[in-house]
């Protein structure tokens, strides 16, 4: 794999994470537990889909085959997506949604801090712009993890269940594979060990304050970012996301 190919793969990963998680959050629109949280989640979704646009545009540019952000978002199928397994997990309930968000933000924040120092100027610019948004996302999700973990016995249980279920998807976030290593080598992305340290500390700090237990799972799931084996959820996400473009191809919207 050349550095250019690896960069394309990497940008797809970043873009698909933002797109799929933003899409998942947007499913809450009009159904949130409180008006203010409906607004907050919609706001985060908005930021993420905006980030996805920038990243997929740049990915298309790097690929150099004349594809657009929309072609990447709307005409790839499951086996070609490169998002983490974590972000395709279903909303389930507000606890699951908040825990999924927190796990992602706790990883994404140090990642983007590193990307804001990227040797790739274009990616650096995207990261600098996104960092403000991601800083807010992390604060929001951390606060809610604490609020719900240390709220009522019912909220505590729902949160602990969500943590126990989603923890097995966190390993993939910070386990480096060939693409990650090439990106770190080229100074395009930070080394995942550093991201992991920050992620790890953040998890410990927030879960502790939330009076939640941090499970030590015997294994971690993977197969999302390398596209090897997504979950059965992704196909349904894409069926909705892509339907209009698939049914009415090659038109302007």
């Amino acid at each position, binding site marked *: 794999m050349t550095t250019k190919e690896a960069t394309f793969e990497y940008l797809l990963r970043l873009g698909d994470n933002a*797109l799929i998680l933003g*899409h998942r959050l*947007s*499913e809450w*629109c*009009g*159904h*949130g*537990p*409180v*008006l*203010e*949280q*409906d*607004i907050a989640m*919609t*706001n985060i*979704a*908005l930021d993420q*889909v*905006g980030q*996805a*646009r920038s990243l*997929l545009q740049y990915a298309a540019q790097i690929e150099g085959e004349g594809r657009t*952000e*929309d072609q990447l*978002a*709307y005409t790839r199928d499951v086996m070609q997506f490169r998002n983490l397994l974590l972000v395709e997990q279903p909303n389930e*309930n*507000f606890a699951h949604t908040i825990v999924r968000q927190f796990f992602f933000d706790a990883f994404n924040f140090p990642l983007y801090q590193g990307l804001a120092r990227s040797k790739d100027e274009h990616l650096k610019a995207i990261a600098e712009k996104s960092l403000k948004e991601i800083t807010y996302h992390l604060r929001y999700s951390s606060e809610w993890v*604490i*609020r*719900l973990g*240390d*709220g*009522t016995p*019912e*909220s505590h249980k*729902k949160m602990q269940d969500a943590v126990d279920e989603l923890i097995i998807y966190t390993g993939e976030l910070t386990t480096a594979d060939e693409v990650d290593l090439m990106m770190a080598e080229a100074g395009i992305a930070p080394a995942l060990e550093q991201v992991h340290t920050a992620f790890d500390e953040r998890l410990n700090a927030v879960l502790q304050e939330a009076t939640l237990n941090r499970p030590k799972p015997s294994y971690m799931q993977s197969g999302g970012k390398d596209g090897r084996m997504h979950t059965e959820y992704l196909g349904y996400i894409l069926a*909705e*996301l892509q*339907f*209009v*473009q698939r049914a*009415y191809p090659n*038109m*302007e*919207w």
Partner: protein
Amino acid sequence: MDQPTNHTIEDQFQARIDAEERIEPKDWMPEAYRKTLIRQISQHAHSEIVGMLPEGNWITRAPSLRRKVALLAKVQDEAGHGLYLYSAAETLGAERDELLEELITGKAKYSSIFNYPTLTWADIGAIGWLVDGAAIMNQVPLCRCSYGPYARAMVRVCKEESFHQRQGYEIMLTLARGTATQKQMAQDALNRWWWPSLMMFGPNDADSKHTAQSMAWKIKRFTNDELRQRFVDITVPQAEFLGLTVPDPSLRLNEETGHYEFGEINWDEFWQVVKGEGPCNRQRLKARRKAHEEGAWVRDAALAYAEKRRKRKEAAAAKTQVA
């Protein structure tokens, strides 16, 4: 009888209104004025909230990332409008929780337009163009409403809603200039949203019981029919520019008056939908009820946590004092 020296508090209030003075929360106001404003403002707030549903219905299927972002932003704005409006209602002594309870039990009303389903992507264009267009027609005069908090909320809402309307029109334009299939999709959406949009202006003036008093109190500046006529006059040329046909065989421009004459609204349908018998009334309420019920544990937890924090702070402060 002529009583030049009679200055009851009601008279003073009306004089202030007539002088175009703003009534603020701490001012005296007739109970009926307060009640009618609570009703109108809360209905407006409920409309923004319920309105998130038909539009939110197409976020996951928006056909381009740019449209997805724009629709997310629009729906977020609407939720924000709901917040301002509930706050405005609260300045009159209403409680948001009670208002929300009235919404989900079906006691409170919201704009009937949101009881229609969004069936294609073109519906999103039609809603922005027609529904926001009609809403703006209603709301611009409200920026000069006699009640301060409501007027100020309307200024903020109108600014954002104008942008939404232009975006909706731009969606329609893209479709109308697109393929034959897209143009047909746009025409079909116009066919389904035209009459319900006209219904947004309410019953004919003769049948509108609230209007007279609302106009006397300068809550309302124009009558239903005046606003409806203005909307038709502005919108029909926009449809023509799109190359689409307004689904009204009676529509014709009266060269003398400069106004468009249009057909009779199906008042049976209007009252049915108001009564709760429209296509989506039950689904809308069910969705809001479900969100409320399933969110109870979240709201309870937030309260419990806030209480714990408060107690910890007190305890910490007490310790500091002792020490």
